[in-house]
């Protein structure tokens, strides 16, 4: 931030809870500034009247506060020294370490030319059967956990991140409680993998509008490693619902007309701009995004999960399974849209058949359960399906499972043989001959 570009003003014309307005000349759209030392960004220019969004909130800002314009958009210093470090929403170290030297790069940069992308084709194994077997993750994919606030989504995400075979993990924490922040930090530290992790964190102690910078910061760092260094990068974003809430605060302060659920009309584009940074590059580098979208009472028709679902390549649902007392990855509502690109290709030939059949049988068990609840008699098949479902849930769907895909397939075949005849499976004959009862 060279001093020569800085321009200083000392008179504000208007102040709202999130924005200030002042008369200034030659101001650039998206330009970064400070208002009384707090970082702010230009969001509206009308003649000489410039509106700034103040990330830290405007409490205590006076009309004679000093406003300094920097002549550039928010940016991040990128270099290999980012590894192992913790930063705030502005990219400033919060781990007591030194400032990172490196190339100065604007955040929220351009999109990849769709014609230059290549089709994702590499599985990201996590050891969790609810994911690897039924909703396989693929390098370059973007997928959120849809979870109620009481579910252990951050724990599952940390587990996935640590098991995934990637070069860098970048955590973008938005509105993390201090406890969760420390949890991530300790988990990464204990795993001895801190050197390949980079974190950008906004905790609940920090002003909510600052969160808006987190995904762009995290993804600018991700693009540095994926594009410049050809590395496989996994980006974790939690919690995107709090990000969207911050968007609605700002749009409200700017007098924009809200659309569904008080969200700004541009919510879809705003979220897409983040998620679409997930990419498989021809050079081998990739960005995979795993996010968390917390739901309110499991309602996925709310604007935030709804728009997210239209953007991301599937979603993962966590659920407390009362039959086994475990947290499982719900096989019905979860979906990985890219799984077809790897299953049966990078995994064993029977993967697709085993997956579909197990879910179908699990659905039969759900029907049997309804029948039971409605007071109808259960057939022998119904009873077997119920027993199967319980074991399947315990041995495979539970999030504490950690085995490879072939073991998952074998475990499922064992359950098939234990509870069902070959005919009841109705799997392609050659596969049944090869794997049933072996």
């Amino acid at each position, binding site marked *: 931030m060279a001093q020569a570009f800085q321009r200083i003003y000392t008179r504000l014309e208007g102040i709202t809870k999130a924005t200030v307005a002042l008369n200034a000349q030659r101001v650039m759209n*998206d330009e970064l500034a400070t208002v009384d030392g707090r970082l702010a960004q230009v969001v509206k*220019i009308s003649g000489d009247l410039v509106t700034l969004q103040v990330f830290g909130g405007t409490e205590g800002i006076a009309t004679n506060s000093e406003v300094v314009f920097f002549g550039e958009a928010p940016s991040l210093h990128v270099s290999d020294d980012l590894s192992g470090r913790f930063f705030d929403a502005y990219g400033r170290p919060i781990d007591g370490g030194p400032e990172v030297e490196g190339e100065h790069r604007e955040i929220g940069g*351009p999109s*990849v*030319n*769709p014609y230059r992308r290549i089709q994702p084709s590499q599985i990201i194994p996590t050891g969790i059967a609810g994911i690897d077997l039924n909703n396989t993750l693929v390098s370059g994919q973007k997928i959120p956990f849809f979870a109620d606030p009481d579910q252990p989504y951050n724990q599952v995400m940390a587990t996935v991140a640590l098991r995934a075979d990637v070069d860098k993990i970048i955590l973008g924490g938005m509105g993390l409680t201090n406890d969760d922040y420390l949890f991530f930090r300790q988990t990464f530290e204990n795993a001895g993998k801190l050197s390949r992790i980079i974190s950008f964190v906004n905790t609940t102690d920090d002003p909510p509008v600052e969160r808006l910078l987190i995904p762009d910061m995290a993804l600018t760092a991700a693009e540095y490693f994926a594009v410049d260094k050809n590395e496989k990068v996994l980006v974790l974003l939690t919690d995107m619902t709090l990000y969207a809430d911050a968007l609605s605060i700002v749009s409200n302060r700017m007098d924009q007309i809200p659309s569904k659920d008080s969200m700004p*009309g541009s919510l879809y584009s705003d979220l*897409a*701009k983040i998620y*679409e940074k997930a990419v498989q590059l021809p050079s081998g580098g990739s960005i995979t995004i795993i996010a968390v979208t917390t739901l309110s009472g499991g309602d996925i028709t709310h604007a935030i999960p709804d728009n997210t679902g239209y953007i991301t390549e599937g979603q993962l649902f966590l659920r407390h399974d009362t039959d086994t007392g475990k947290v499982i990855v719900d096989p019905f509502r979860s979906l990985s849209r890219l799984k077809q690109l790897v299953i049966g290709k990078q995994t064993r030939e029977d993967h697709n058949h085993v997956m579909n059949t197990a879910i179908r049988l699990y659905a039969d068990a759900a029907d049997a359960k309804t029948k039971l609840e409605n007071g109808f008699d259960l057939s022998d098949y119904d009873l077997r399906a119920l027993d199967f479902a319980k074991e399947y849930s315990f041995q495979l769907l539970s999030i504490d499972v950690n085995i490879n895909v072939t073991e998952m397939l074998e475990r499922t075949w064992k359950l098939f043989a234990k509870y069902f005849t070959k005919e009841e499976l109705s799997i392609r004959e050659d596969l049944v001959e090869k794997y049933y009862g072996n």
Partner: protein
Amino acid sequence: MQTQTTGKVRGIIANLVTIEVDGPVAQNEICFIHLADTRLMAEVIRVSGKSVSAQVFESTRGLRVGDHVTFAGHMLEVQLGPGLLSSNYDGLQNNLTTMDGVFLKRGEYTDPLDREKTWDFKPLVRTGDTVTAGDWLGEVMEGWLVHRIMVPFVMTGTYSVEKITVEGSYTVDETVAVLKDEKGTSIPVTMVQRWPVKRAITAYKQKPRPYKVMETGVRTIDTFNPIAEGGTGFIPGPFGSGKTVLQHAIAKQAEADIIMVAACGERANEVVEIFTEFPKLIDARTGRHLMERTTIICNTSNMPVAAREASVYTAMTLCEYYRAMGHRALLLADSTSRWAQALREMSNRMEELPGQDAFPMDLPAIISSFYARAGIVELNNGELGSVTFIGTVSPAGGNLKEPVTESTQKATRCFYALSQNRADRKRYPAIDPMDSYSKYLEYPEIIKYYEEKLGPEWIDSIWEGKNYVRRGKEAYEQINILGDDGVPLEYHINYWKSELIDFIILQQDAFDSIDASTPMERQQYMYTKIIEVCRQAFEFEDFEECSAFFKRLINIFRQMNYSEYMSEEFKRYETDIEELLSQKVQA
């Protein structure tokens, strides 16, 4: 000759820029904002005195008050000429293939047509002939497709051919004809013409009602709710209900000469799938690679929002251009909701009074006038050309009572409702057989077409089949309330007849090499067989015997669907079915 209008930037909110101008401007005129050494394209969307609002097709980061603006003097245009086919464009018709680097660069505009390539031109008119806009002057081969070089659509009135070039190789910019207007002015014509995308191309004699059916190979569409050639349809559905898989299936199989895929505000990886697979996949009808008949207009969700709106217009204009050559074009737009959202974002920034869900008030009018551009037309020379249009809609929360779905429903004739319930139960394609409809089934022209092509019973049997499905659904509800034993056996039989139609006709495996696409002849054969079964009266001891019987029947019919049509295997299953039926059908 008027001088070029220029202006200065006065205000910026996201991609809406206000400009003070020094001369005349037109609504929807294109202008360029000069930012360092790049120029950012923008479109005028409101004029008020000397102040003009423009939506910028790029990121406005770094723009300042006082930046210089030049006006282009025309609306958003595309270039029309040989070389469009099999291209990959963004929403503004920039060629994505020839762009440098991994990232899209702001202000980089690439040429949609190859200026160096030569085309073998064959004249179709003689000196002295009288011509009007849209008339064919000559033709070149664009790969396998005959590409007509036409009198530019902007040329109103009649002209006489003063000169037409001899057969030979020319680049698109060489003059191939000289036309003389009524005042005697000579106008040179090349193989390229320009057209403003927001205007419909109407260089045809008339637009009759659609009178024939366009096959898609998707049974639930072709058999139950067919779309007419030159017709309009739309597919609304919540996320995960299979909109994109269905659109891709139609893109692969539909009986059209040209497929225009407008990826409007959707996932980039879905377009990558087309980029990757279409050059490899073979079109069963012609034996050619699918990419040879496909053009992609791609404005994914992370690309500039204003260009998203332009992308559907660009795609429609290219379709109309090929229609004027006498070809059958099919436009698939995924998703028109994203386009409507782009309109909403702009309307919001311009502080217009909002309509329902904050969408602009004129949304229904915009949607219906856009769908109205589809249609089959009779050209000036008597040949036929068509644009069939199927759009997808992504209703918020999967709720069909929202402005985009409702407006689109009024503007289209086919409605393919994707049901979450069917998707959850893996019944794909998840088109709900009861909620969906095709108005074309009521067109006398279409009824006549079916009578001639598939026989007089066909239309009646469609209604009959739909009735079996409806009855089955009612029976299913009763069984759920009263229990298996609580209803007469007849209810179970009705239910299973509808399941038979569902499993064998409505459900289709888009990933199976044989089942993915069913030609009409095979559809008629199978459907007639199924309806014959439904007409039978059956005798069963109890409901368990009934369901066991139909499960077996469905299984064999399914194997038939997976077998090569009329193969040994196919016929063997057919014999099995007859044998099974003979046991239970009442004499």
